[in-house]
């Protein structure tokens, strides 16, 4: 009993010691960050970030694509169909064996010799020419 009384009296004394008091600004700081005090416009935000990410990816992809196109042109190792319409390569025309046969003065079935002769000359597409200009030149040759 005495032991219990002494423990109880010690406990009482301990409890009666002054307690710590938290400053009022702690509560204010917490309320400033409270979810119930946040502005309501946050609802639109979930869509903004994914759209921005998507746009960034598109821009990066286009950039890579453009770069790959330029690299292919520089190496000259590309099939004709892979060239974008906006870009015009420099192509060196190499006369084929067929044209040599056609150049034979005795062989001129359709009056093509003049045309062929013109074609035999180095056919260069100037850098910067668009396909439409190319087509116009070819049509001019055909006429």
């Amino acid at each position, binding site marked *: 009993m005495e032991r219990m009384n002494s*423990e109880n009296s010690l406990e009482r004394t301990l409890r009666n010691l002054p*307690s710590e*008091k938290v*400053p009022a600004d*702690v509560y204010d700081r*917490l309320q400033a960050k*409270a979810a119930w005090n946040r502005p309501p416009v946050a609802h639109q935000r979930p869509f903004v970030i994914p759209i921005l990410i998507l746009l960034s990816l598109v821009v990066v992809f286009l950039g890579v694509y453009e770069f790959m196109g330029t690299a292919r042109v520089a190496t000259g190792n590309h099939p004709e169909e892979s060239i974008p319409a906006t870009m015009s390569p420099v192509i060196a025309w190499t006369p084929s064996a067929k044209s040599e046969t056609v150049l034979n003065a005795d062989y001129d079935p359709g009056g093509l010799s003049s045309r062929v002769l013109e074609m035999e000359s180095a056919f260069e597409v100037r850098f910067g020419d668009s396909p439409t200009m190319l087509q116009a030149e070819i049509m001019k040759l055909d006429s």
Partner: protein
Amino acid sequence: MENTSEIRQIVTLYASDPRQGFDLLYRVFANRLATYLRRSFNLDSDEISDIVHDTFLPWVEKPDKMKSVDNPASYLFSTAKYIALETKRKMGNTVPDVDAPEPAFPFDSTRIDTEMVISEALSLLPDEQREVIALKIWGDLTFEEIAAVQQVSLQTAASRYRYALQKLKEKLAWKE
């Protein structure tokens, strides 16, 4: 027990209205947490304020998540303990200072002596014994809640408390 019904009231209110529930939670536990931190870890007022702030922060920022907490008392004190230990670790001081902390309020000299003497005696106890006294006396936790905070069995928490009181009495030369 009054403590249990108080906890139940806080949990119920917080689940239905986090704003009011938090107000009640803060009113009941803020000063208790601060006193526990002072007595158990001998931290200064600024550190205590920061730890109390960080302890309550999830309750205002993520009420949907905190609604699932069954016992806010043991959760709050466990969180405060973890942050306090981290604070002490960063300070490079895991052993509490022997010097008595400054009193929270101005009071007469006899009480100042008692406060200082008891604080000094508390600081000489092992960490877990000092903590169990702080949790029981100033945190006003049940032994079940203390066991959850200290991560020991209920029996260990209760016997640790009795042994800590006995040692404190010896150090204080406590007379009945």
